[in-house]
């Protein structure tokens, strides 16, 4: 038994990969459809958007590249549906160069679904280099940071930006962030100085980092990982990729818990039987 436990402790990792693969794929094929509880931090963003007046300007910063797509794509889609449903005007930007194509395609696809017109109901300004400087620059003068939008139209000619000279004039900013630059950049260099309200969305792995900002009101809400995106879809009553992925995440979490229990059991067992052997 001692030897078996030792062998299991040194289990080839490919078996673990296989177990996780089954745990991911099976629920996607046969969904469980379990209810999802909405957390207060996600509800706060939803409620804030609900309270914005029609025609209010929401800056959505797609601060991620394709690596963050599995978690942040459903989040972006859900937020855009909500904003367009409420007739908000969306200004998309990104602080990540590799995120430009992805951000533009998400924004234009969702806008098309709602029959929104580019330049009037939404626009994508594109990528601005300089991380924190880009935010400061937008806070000082939007047209200095982005002389033209992603499609080459001068931003002073865009109807959507009439009356919007800088970040001081927008109603809400949400940063969907996979790392730095992201929520921290928008908070430290943007909200603090220019006084706009800020919400955040991030990958599950980085969510714990933003709880101090959430509890002090430095960000007014947080959508954390695929779970957060699924909660937002629940609030919108619009089932998307996040809800579909939650069953896979459920089984994967439980498989990891089982693996942790097993490895700790085997570890304690081998230590105890080892001691008995040498006594």
């Amino acid at each position: 038994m001692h030897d078996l436990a030792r062998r299991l402790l040194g289990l080839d990792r490919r078996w673990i990969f296989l177990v996780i693969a089954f745990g991911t794929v099976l629920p996607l094929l046969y969904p469980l459809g379990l209810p999802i509880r909405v957390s207060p931090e996600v509800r706060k963003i939803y409620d804030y958007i609900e309270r914005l007046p029609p025609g209010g300007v929401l800056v959505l910063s797609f601060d991620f590249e394709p690596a963050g797509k599995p978690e942040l794509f459903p989040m972006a889609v859900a937020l855009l549906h909500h904003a367009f449903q409420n007739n908000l005007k969306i200004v998309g930007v990104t602080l990540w160069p590799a995120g430009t194509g992805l951000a533009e395609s998400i924004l234009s696809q969702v806008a098309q679904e709602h029959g929104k017109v580019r330049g009037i109901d939404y626009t994508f300004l594109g990528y601005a280099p300089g991380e924190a400087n880009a935010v400061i620059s937008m806070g000082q003068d939007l047209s200095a940071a982005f002389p033209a939008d992603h499609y080459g139209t001068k931003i002073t000619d865009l109807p959507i930006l009439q009356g919007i000279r800088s970040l001081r004039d927008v109603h809400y900013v949400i940063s969907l962030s996979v790392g730095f630059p992201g929520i921290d950049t928008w908070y430290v260099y943007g909200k603090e100085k220019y006084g706009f309200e800020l919400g955040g969305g991030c990958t599950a792995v980085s969510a714990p980092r933003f709880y101090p900002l959430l509890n002090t009101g430095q960000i007014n809400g947080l959508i954390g990982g695929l779970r957060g995106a699924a909660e937002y879809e629940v609030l919108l009553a619009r089932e998307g990729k996040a809800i579909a992925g939650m069953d896979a995440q459920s089984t994967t979490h439980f498989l990891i818990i089982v693996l942790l229990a097993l490895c700790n059991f085997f570890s304690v067992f081998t230590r105890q039987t080892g001691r008995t052997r040498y006594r």
Partner: protein
Amino acid sequence: MVFWKRTLPVAITFMLGITFMLQYYVPHPASEALLREVSVWNQIIAGFAVILGVASLLQSHAQKIKRKAPGWGYSVVMYASMCSMLGFGIWSEGKGEGTAFGWLYTYTLVPLQATMFSLLAFFVASAAYRAFRARSPQATVLLLAAVLVMWGRVPLGEYLLPGIGQVSDWIMNIPNTAAQRGILIGISLGAIATSIKIICGIERAHLGGGQE
């Protein structure tokens, strides 16, 4: 030589550091105009830094290929990928829709990067099985917190054990926030101290460690 390499950069850093530290507290239109101007300069400098980074990366991989250093094949792949993306990007004037550049982005870069990130679940599971053991009281607390958060953050966990979600939320909101806040304060104090050292010319590593 010392003047150009050390004294002048330190003097410029000191002058700009002090100016913009004070600028934050002066909302006068002239001060705001100065910040507006300098933030545009900084964006231009950041743009050039990207070019410098790409050039440096290509140069370092070119050396690897030239010397046939271990793993030089990966450098060839990197070269081919970067040059093709760059070439198609310039050819299509940076436009994504309906261009070869857009196709490469959507059908190679996006799935490759998303796959790399998704592999995290497999490696986390494997690493947890190998290393996450309750060997000490501290490790046991960490292990229990991890299990409770993992359990409480998914619908299956809340379905099996109603109320576990609130326990998970409590861990995230109270002990996690306390620890993160401590880290954040530490980082901020460190950043302030380093900034003061750089502004005063005590810390000069950013100027390069070459001979004077």
